[in-house]
């Protein structure tokens, strides 16, 4: 109990802040902050596994998040039969063709010795393959995108419950991480950072512009939810009774029946959104707790100790017979898969997939701020970082407004300088993030909750 005091007090303060938002602003707001805090926590756990456990920099978090979101679309949307009819066969053919290219390249790499001829061979296979792909997919893509372009114009998904996508998203992200890891993990730390950042941009470019896959920038809206809809809830008997029971005190004050009905109706509408968000928060909490247990177990297992050894001294670990390259790849895939889960969770919560909204500032650098601020190498720290930074990110605007009003209280309401500052309130969050990160890195470089290593 004593030694975990810092963790407990930090989390109590955090939850207290969210509850404070509930009282001061609205419960709806507080719960949506909580949901996004939980999603951020999953992302930071993924990044923390890579950076905190193994010391790998991955600036491609945005790419894995987007792939998780893509998984949510591909799993939950019902298939567009018409599109499959017009272009399905060619697209499947293309998938086989890609597999064929990959295998023949692998075959050449394995079979022949290093030489210029081999490189030309690989290049020839890839170029011929790409031309064939273009020829086969071109007309198919055109006809798929022509199918009812206002609402579909893509192949659709599998029509399964969206909860499956959380696992599928993990696999998608893991597969991408495997490819990237094979290419880039040999690079030095900062090269790896830049390479992953750029590769994630490529992933976003593909998702944005391949309309047959997930409608690209035209967005997919109205994804199915794993929890009830507000409109359905408002008509359900048991829910109305529940609301009535909760607000007994307020309702009893009103004697007029008509007025009472009116108030009850309003309360039902308000509580239905809160109830939906509570369900989401519950689901997300389950995911966070499961991941926390697994990562915590892994950290204190022999495997976790080995990862720390690799992180702190690669050569020594190598000399002790640990396969550094293989372990790096493994942890790269695992961490990215967790980020993929978070991406799918986020799209599930939003109910829509908007590839245009994936920007490195929000999905890569902000997550890194969370990990550094929270405490790398410590799962509780990473989760706390996710909570604290997201809270600040959302609440930055009210805080900034308060500060501006406080410091410019001497100026008139219509003063040009004051108006300008008030108009640029949204950008103060960048300032707060930056200053916060710099302060933490200077005065508490190991984060709010630093890594704890048991010395045996």
């Amino acid at each position, binding site marked *: 109990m004593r030694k975990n005091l810092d963790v407990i007090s930090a989390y109590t303060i955090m939850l207290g802040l969210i509850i404070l938002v509930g009282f001061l602003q609205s419960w709806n707001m507080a719960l949506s902050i909580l949901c996004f805090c939980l999603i951020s926590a999953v992302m930071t756990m993924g990044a923390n596994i890579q950076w905190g456990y193994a010391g790998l920099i991955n600036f491609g978090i945005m790419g894995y998040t987007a792939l998780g979101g893509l998984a949510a679309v591909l799993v939950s949307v019902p298939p567009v039969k018409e599109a499959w009819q017009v272009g399905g066969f060619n697209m499947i053919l293309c998938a086989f063709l890609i597999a064929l290219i990959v295998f023949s390249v692998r075959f050449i790499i394995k079979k022949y010795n290093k030489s210029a001829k081999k490189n030309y061979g690989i290049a020839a296979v890839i170029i011929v393959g790409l031309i064939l792909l273009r020829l086969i997919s071109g007309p198919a893509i055109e006809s798929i995108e022509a199918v009812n372009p206002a609402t579909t114009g893509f192949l659709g998904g599998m029509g399964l419950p969206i909860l499956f996508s959380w696992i599928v998203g993990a696999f998608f992200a893991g597969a991408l991480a495997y490819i990237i890891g094979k290419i880039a993990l040999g690079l030095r*730390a*900062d090269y790896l950072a*830049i390479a992953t950042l*750029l590769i994630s941009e490529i992933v976003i*470019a593909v998702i944005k*512009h391949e309309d047959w896959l997930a409608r690209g920038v035209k967005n997919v809206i109205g994804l199915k939810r794993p929890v009830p809809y507000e409109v359905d809830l408002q008509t359900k008997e048991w829910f109305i009774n529940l609301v009535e029971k909760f607000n007994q005190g307020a309702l009893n004050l009103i004697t007029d029946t008509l007025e009472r009905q009116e108030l009850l109706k309003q309360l039902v509408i308000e509580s239905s959104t809160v109830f939906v968000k509570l369900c989401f928060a519950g689901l997300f909490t389950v995911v966070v707790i499961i991941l926390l247990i697994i990562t915590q177990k892994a950290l204190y297992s022999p495997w976790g100790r080995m990862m720390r050894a690799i992180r702190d001294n690669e050569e020594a670990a190598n000399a002790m017979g640990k396969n550094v390259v293989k372990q790096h790849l493994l942890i790269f895939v695992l961490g990215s898969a967790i980020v993929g889960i978070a991406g799918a969770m986020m799209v599930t919560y939003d109910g829509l997939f908007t590839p245009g909204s994936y920007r490195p500032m929000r999905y890569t650098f902000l997550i890194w*701020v969370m990990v550094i601020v929270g405490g790398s190498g410590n799962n509780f720290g990473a989760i706390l970082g996710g909570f604290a930074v997201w809270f600040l990110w959302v609440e930055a605007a009210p805080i900034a407004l308060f500060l501006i009003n406080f410091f410019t209280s001497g100026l008139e309401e219509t003063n040009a300088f004051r108006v300008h500052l008030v108009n640029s309130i949204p950008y103060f969050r960048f300032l707060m993030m930056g200053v916060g990160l*710099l302060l933490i890195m200077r005065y508490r470089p190991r984060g709010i909750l630093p890594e704890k290593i048991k010395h045996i």
Partner: protein
Amino acid sequence: MDFLNAIVLLLNYLFVPALSYGSQLALGAIFVSLIYGILRFAYFTAGDLMSFGTMFTILFTWYFQSLGINLGFLPTALLAMPFGIVITILYVLIKDKLVFSYYRTQKSPPVMLAMVSIGTMFVTQAIVRIVIGPFDRRFFDGEKFILKANEFKEMTGLNEGLTIKSTQVITLLVTIIVVSILFWFLNRTKTGKSMRAYSDNEDLALLSGIDPKKVVMITWIIAAILATIGGALYGLDKSFKPFTYFNNMLPIFAAAIVGGIGNPFGAFLGGYVIAFSEILLTYAYRKFFVYILPESLEPDGLLQLLSTDYKFAVSFSILVIVLLFRPSGIFKGKVL
């Protein structure tokens, strides 16, 4: 005649735009490469430092315009640029004093410094958006074209026009001047040589009495100058929007790495490699082949290797290929 038309077509749509875009990237890539070579970390604030310098150039441009000062057919921004540079230099030096110098004395690993530069990236971005806002700004004035398509057609009697914007020429001229001064400075002056020595081998350089503080300060000053000039030229040629500048950080990094990071000359060429490959691979060659092939062989597709949506992806793919086969970049050679 058809052949000439084809050449003019390529010049107009490929060569001239790629040359000016490449120059803008090259200026950015050189300072990223310099910082990497001398301060030894990946400077993620690159794009935002460019937007910071451009912002002050724009503010001074507006100020001069309100005073009625202009350069005739040249854009007023050229006059404002030195003032923007001075403020950017002050900004990077203050930033170095407050933030980076601490980590240098602590001998922190490069990764730590890269993270710190992400912190300064957030701060710089906030400053730019708070001061000038996130919107698109055009601040070009003066003569827009040096050569208009119609004039060219009349002059030569060709079907295809050649347009040369004055910003493109200004970009090229300024780049040539700045880069030649920079390489003269690095290769011929004592300070430049001491910088190269410091980049090559820090310990040896310190032993031979090179003042590290001076080297670091000069590096930041050069970075601020190049960032402001590169940013302002980009803004003149296209338009100024903080978000685009942040995004430009990516091709700039790609250019610096392709050219062999830590090697300014490589970075300079890397900028053009990235710009040309982006435009070459996403250009639709249909019209070009219509001109040079006989009518019977006329192509019916667009003959575009990749859709323009993948412009960014092209440069990054080149980067990935380079990293795979030559991790030290195309022009490794000497360091710095």
